[in-house]
Structures are given as structure tokens and as C-alpha cells.
């Protein structure tokens, strides 16, 4: 009976969403010129007259070369990154905060009493291969977030990869225990650094999270102003944070 009701209600919900689908443009048939993202792609937000734009006068620039050029308001070749870390950097700060909040939450929920290791005999192959793979994985993670503004990826996947390395350490080495003080201070200082970047922007450019470093040539490594720096802090923060979460859940308490 419960299932029947559930199926009925679930089907109703699906029907409702299908009905709502009729109100948005069909799949793949989107006109970007109606959306703000056109200007993110063109990197010309500063030159758009917003009051005209909102009333329907879309000022889409003509076709132009972006890659390898200088002097745009934002320098990252990866437009998603430019949105994440520059145009909508505040969202990302929020996102970092979500992760931070959940790390704090996990710590508070699980924390308190004495800790004991969760024992499971690691096998030999895992241990040896970890020794070989670990530096590579960490390097890969660092690469991902350092190149976040050029290639797909960025702080979050990069940090996650680092956390995966820590997880691997936990699985392979019975004795291993993450140094909580180090990870916490890394997490805290990196988070503060992000806010401080924002505050520097406020001091220099008059707006929180203002991109206060010069943009280079689109497509080169040192190009996108604060973006690589921010991504680096995010990467380290997420890495240490998720490692902390993994460690927190992994370690067992007694009593």
C-alpha cells in the first residue's frame, strides 16, 4: 500500500515536472543571447549598459578572437572557471563555506570522546601501490587546481583528489592518523585567505572579491588575475577539509 501511494505521488510529481518543462525552452534549443552568460563568454560585462540590457536591448558583441589576446576583464580561458571564481566568486565563497560548515558539523557530531583506530588489515599490494601512487595522486590533484582556469577542473576536484590520497593512506596503513592540528590550521588559514583576498579586493577595488591582480593573456598559466590563487587556496582548503571529514568518519571512538 505504501509503495502504491509512493508510486502514485512520485508519478504525480514526475507529471508535474513534465508539465513545468513546457514553460522552458526545449532541450538544446537555447538562445544564449537572452542570458547573462553570453557576456561572460564574451568577457565584456563591464562594457554592457545594464539598464538597457535588462529592458531587452541585448548588446551582443560580434564574433571576435579571445584566446591568446590580452586586456579582457577576465583572463581565464575556461569560462566556467571565470564564472566560478570571478563573476560569481561569492557563490564559491559560499560553497567553500558549505563544505567548511559540514566539516565543522561532522567534527561536532562525531567529536567529543576518545578516539580509537578502526582496524582492518590492509593487504600488501594496497600498501605498496599506495607508496608509489600517493605522490602521483597528490601531484595530479595540485595540477588540477593550478590549471583550473585553463582546463576543466579546479579547486574542488583537485582538493577531492588530495583527499582521496589521504583516504588511500588510511586504507593502506593501519598506523596512519591524520594530524588534525595541521589539517585544521590549513583549512582555517586557507579559508581565511579566501576571505582576505576578498577584503583586499574591497580595499583595492572597492568591491568585495574584486579581481585586484592584472589579467594576462588568455590561455597562459599566469593569466587570470586572482583566479589561480583563489583556486589554489580552495584546492588546499577542500583537500584538508575533506581529508578531515574522511578521517573523522573513519576513526572510531570508544565508549
Amino acid at each position, binding site marked *: 500500500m*505504501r*509503495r502504491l501511494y*509512493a*508510486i502514485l*505521488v*512520485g508519478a504525480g*510529481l*514526475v507529471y508535474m*515536472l*513534465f508539465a513545468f*518543462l513546457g514553460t*522552458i525552452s526545449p*532541450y*538544446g*534549443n*537555447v*538562445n*544564449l543571447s537572452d*542570458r*547573462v*552568460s553570453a557576456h*561572460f*563568454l*564574451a*568577457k565584456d560585462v563591464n562594457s554592457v549598459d545594464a539598464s538597457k540590457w535588462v529592458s531587452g536591448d541585448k548588446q*551582443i558583441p560580434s*564574433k*571576435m*578572437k*579571445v*584566446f*591568446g589576446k590580452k586586456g579582457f576583464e577576465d583572463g581565464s*580561458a*575556461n*569560462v*566556467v572557471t571565470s*564564472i*566560478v571564481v570571478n563573476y*560569481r566568486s561569492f*557563490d564559491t565563497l*559560499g*560553497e567553500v563555506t*558549505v*563544505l567548511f560548515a*559540514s*566539516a565543522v*558539523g*561532522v567534527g561536532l*557530531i*562525531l567529536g567529543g570522546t576518545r578516539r580509537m583506530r578502526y582496524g582492518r588489515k590492509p593487504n600488501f599490494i594496497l600498501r605498496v601501490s599506495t607508496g608509489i601512487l600517493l605522490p602521483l595522486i597528490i601531484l595530479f590533484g595540485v595540477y588540477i587546481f593550478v590549471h583550473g582556469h*585553463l*582546463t*576543466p577542473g*579546479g579547486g*574542488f576536484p583537485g582538493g577531492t583528489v588530495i583527499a582521496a590520497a589521504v583516504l588511500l593512506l588510511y586504507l593502506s596503513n593501519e598506523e596512519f592518523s591524520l594530524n588534525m592540528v595541521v589539517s585544521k590550521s590549513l583549512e582555517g588559514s586557507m579559508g581565511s585567505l579566501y576571505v582576505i583576498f576578498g577584503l583586499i579586493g574591497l580595499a583595492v577595488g572597492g568591491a568585495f572579491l574584486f579581481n585586484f591582480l592584472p589579467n594576462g593573456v*588568455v*590561455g597562459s598559466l599566469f593569466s587570470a588575475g586572482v583566479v589561480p590563487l583563489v583556486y589554489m587556496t580552495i584546492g588546499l582548503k577542500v583537500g584538508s577539509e575533506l581529508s578531515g*571529514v574522511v578521517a*573523522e*568518519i573513519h576513526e572510531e571512538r570508544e565508549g
Partner: protein
Amino acid sequence: MVYAISIILIGIGIYGLMTQKNLFKHLISLSIIDTAVNIFIIATGYVEGGKAPIYTKSLPNFAIGKFVDPLPQALVLTAIVIGVGTLAVGASLLVRIREKHSSIDVENMKGVEE
């Protein structure tokens, strides 16, 4: 059609939340809904024939219709991470629920106050 897939996944997630008695399954269902919503969001930004919004050597020029919408992608990046945060808190709560109520099955949990 991607819309259809994601909507059906949302339906399944809700169905799972409604029928399952194991709290772990609730977490999994929630995660399914998250993923489905993410797919939905990306689908709203898809442009037929568009490319990934990254300027490269082979794709150096800006033009409307050439790229997919990057904004939903940026949003989804955030949404994914938020999902993980929720999940981590949920998982740690589950650990403690299991300790306190000796089960994570709604019907077998002990000492749940009315």
C-alpha cells in the same frame, strides 16, 4: 530527453524517500535527487552543436551559439559540492544514530521519543 531522464530520476529519488525504512537509503535517495537536479540544470544550458565553454587554440573565437551556456555549469559545480556537504553531515549523523538507537532502520530504532 535528458530532461526526461532527470525528471524520472527525481521521481525515483522521491519514491525511495517515501518507501524506504532504512535511513541510509534516505541519504542515498537524497543523493539521487541531487544528481538528477544537477543533470537537469546542465540540460537547461545545453546548446545544440555547442562546444564546452573553454577557449583553446582550436577554439579561440567568441560567437553566440558556438558554446553551451557556462553559467549552469558553474552553478552545478556549486550544487555538487553542497550535495557532498549535506551527505557528509548526514553520514556522520547516521553513525551517531546507529550508536544511540542501535539501528538505522526506522522500525527497529530504540528509544526514539515520541
